């Protein structure tokens, strides 16, 4: 199995995540698309790590998982706080900081 197939899959998943962030207006779906992009990059790291026989990539994915977990907790807390103030999670209607 060539390494480039894994990298191509990761590229496709990353692009789908970018599209999700750009076209959706629901903050939670945008957040899930960010998780998708994180996962695509993790796949790249694991693919390189196992093809080069280097453990460091796997360790980096482990730390990336920890950061993703804490990011999800804080981000969802922010979404709840925004929903409490605006009664919506539509990012086109949350324009308090827009000039």
């Amino acid at each position, binding site marked *: 199995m060539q390494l480039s197939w*894994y990298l191509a899959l990761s*590229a496709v998943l990353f692009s*789908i995540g970018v599209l999700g962030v750009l076209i959706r207006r629901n903050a939670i779906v945008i957040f899930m698309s960010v998780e*998708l992009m994180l996962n695509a990059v*993790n796949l790249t790291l694991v693919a390189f790590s196992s093809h*080069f026989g280097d453990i*460091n990539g796997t360790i980096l994915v482990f730390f990336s998982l920890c950061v993703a977990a804490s990011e*999800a907790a*804080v981000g*969802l807390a922010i979404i709840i706080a925004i929903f409490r103030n605006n009664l919506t999670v539509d990012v086109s209607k949350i324009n308090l900081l827009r000039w």
Partner: protein
Amino acid sequence: MVTYFFVLFATLAIASAIAMILNKNTVNSALFLVVNLISLSGIYLLLQAQFLAVIQILVYAGAIMVLFLFVIMLLNLDNEENILNKFRVRYGVAFIVGIVILAQLLYSVGTWANVLPTVSPKMVQTGTVEAVGDVLFSHYLLPFEVTAILLTAAVVGALLIAQRKIQTKK
């Protein structure tokens, strides 16, 4: 054998990712993301990263997605009526940006494809719990401990932000 499984998992991952961003119901998109994460963990298994495959299911498909579903159901959102109707120009720009990024990534993968290694002889040894633990608790001990501080800070921060009214001391 590996190729068949790769095609199966890759198709599942891409299809569920597309279904996730195009679904009107937020709960359904969260469940599609779970399918996507599980198929990615299958691909980790193909790459001999068994430990990460298990962690992927436990942490991502388990903990993080439960958190997402919990928040979605807590907020009790309606289905979005039109996710693709308004602002046609914006969607055009979004698709162009996405396609440009995809083309760049695939081009760079394609140009370097012949210099990439196929299978490392050391490949079998990486990714087991023993190999990961050996490096994690010796060479990466300090970053591992810092991770604990990060997680504690995240818990405290999430509690503080999601509080109903932040108490200010006079």
